[in-house]
């Protein structure tokens, strides 16, 4: 005790001071996050139980807003669209992104230029993406027209005017915009894999695809978590793409929840409906997020 007390005595005030400084340094960030996200979210949830119309008023009416929300066909379509978009964009982004990354990992020529090109769509806003794809998918000048003018007269590809498949038209644009980034992340993950693992797998005579699935992918866990966060945040904020590409049409076939909330608030001046819609979305995200966060971080205490 006596021998160590001298350095400890001089160190402790510094340590203490540093810890305090560290806490102070993090305060602005935590405050903004707490005030805005938690405060705003709780406020929204509370007022979703009120009869607010043009202005938020605290006259509570229980679950009426939710009844109306779920009996609205527009909301039903919006939820269905978000589900389709979410599931498809999750699967396709991951698969296409990984395959492209594996392709690029073969040390192709001009790799850097290729990578930049793949990232360019991501550097465009969803608004521009939506407009460009609205045009490409337009039957009168887009893909359909080009294929037909090449001689295949019966070719038909007109997703944006077909209520059944309009959400897939939006999905294509969304994938075009986002897959390049996923590819780059995956590529970074693949590059992080030790070359010796490939050598060992080859010596053992394991085919390449098996090496990818059973050895490489499990090792890229961290990268997959990052990509999942990015894809998920892209799904929940699906709004601008729809506005630019279809404005929710034809009819209400490509409505999404974020647009429903926006319309309720600004067009039909029915704040209560907007609050209820936001709350449902929050709830949906939490239902997905909590089990995942639990699996990912709940067992952390063990190590």
């Amino acid at each position, binding site marked *: 005790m006596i021998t160590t007390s001298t350095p400890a005595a001089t160190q402790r005030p510094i340590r203490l001071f540093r*810890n305090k400084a*560290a*806490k102070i*340094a993090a305060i602005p*960030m*935590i405050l903004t*996050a707490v005030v*805005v996200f938690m405060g*705003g*979210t709780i406020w*929204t949830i509370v*007022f979703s139980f009120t009869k607010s119309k043009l202005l938020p008023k605290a006259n509570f009416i229980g679950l009426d807003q939710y009844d109306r929300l779920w009996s609205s066909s527009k909301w039903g379509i919006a939820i269905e669209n978000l589900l389709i978009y979410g599931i498809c964009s999750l699967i396709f982004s991951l698969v296409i992104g990984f395959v*492209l990354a594996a*392709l*690029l990992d*073969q*040390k*192709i*020529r001009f790799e*850097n230029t290729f990578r930049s090109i793949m*990232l*360019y*769509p991501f*550097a*465009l*806003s*969803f*608004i*521009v993406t*939506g*407009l*460009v794809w*609205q045009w490409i998918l337009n039957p009168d*000048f887009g893909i359909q*027209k*080009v294929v037909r*003018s090449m001689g295949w007269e019966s070719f038909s590809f007109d997703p944006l005017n077909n209520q059944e498949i309009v959400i897939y038209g939006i999905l294509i644009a969304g994938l*075009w915009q986002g897959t*390049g980034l996923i590819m*780059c*992340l995956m*590529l970074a*993950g693949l590059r992080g894999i030790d*070359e010796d693992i490939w050598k060992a797998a080859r010596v053992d005579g394991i085919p390449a695809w098996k090496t990818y699935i059973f050895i490489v992918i499990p090792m890229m866990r961290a990268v997959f978590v990052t990509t999942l*966060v990015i894809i998920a*945040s892209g799904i929940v904020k699906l*709004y*601008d793409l729809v*506005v*630019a590409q279809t404005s929710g049409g034809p009819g209400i076939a490509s409505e999404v*929840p974020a647009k429903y*909330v*926006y319309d309720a*608030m600004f067009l039909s001046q029915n704040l209560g409906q*907007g609050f209820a819609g*936001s709350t449902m979305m*929050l709830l949906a*995200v939490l239902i997905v*997020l909590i089990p995942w*966060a639990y699996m990912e971080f709940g067992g952390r205490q063990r190590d």
Partner: protein
Amino acid sequence: MARAVSTRRKLIVTLLAWTIGIAIFFPILWTVLTSFKTEAEAIASPPSLFFFDWTTENYAAVQSRSNYGLHFSNSVIISLGSTLLGLLIAIPAAWSMAFVPGKWTKDILMWMLSTKMLPPVGVLIPIYLMFRDTGLLDSRLGLVIVLTLINLPIIVWMLYTYFKEIPVDILEAARMDGAALWSEIIYVLTPMAVPGIASTLLLNVILAWNEAFWTLNLTAAKAAPLTAFIASYSSPEGLFYAKLSAASTMAIAPILILGWFSQKQLVRGLTFGAVK
């Protein structure tokens, strides 16, 4: 990376990759080309790729209909402003999490990142009302604040990953030499983290530049950035594709140029520091 790949296979893979690359790039190229066509040529069939009468009339038309300069300067101010303000808040926070980790650091980081997964509509209405009451609606300052808040988690996360790579010993050496805390951050840490900070800055400028949900909802005319400008072309003039292309090109050109000259930082930024 000395994996044995035969030349023929390499050629095939390269060709395949480039076909995909060109297909991906084509919509952008097409938009830029169309902006130089007349309206009639823009919807001509079969469309001509390069052989048409190049014209800049669409740009003149777009410029006379709306004030590109104003929207452009709004975009610059909002994206740069929000990024710089974000860095100002995030650098101390990331420093404290990377070098003085506490019991809750990991949880705070995760919790903070998870706010990125919450739907923005959840906080739209309260923020809208707060802005209306404080007169921040349709103001640049308001957008700077909102975009700072929205992108703060990403900024902190990116800086945290970069700071983690800096050896603590160097900071400790500075401390031994008697450097005060703030000079340690400003003169030792920040210069070493410049590449990381540059990537963060670049990525967040682009994210803020492209942010449309908040800019569309919180601006009307005065503070509207380029995203709102381009959105105003989508509905009423939906069929004037050449002008729409010109407007789109004007909106994306700054980013494309910026991206071209800073490819390395951009890739690093976009991949959260995973690619160097």
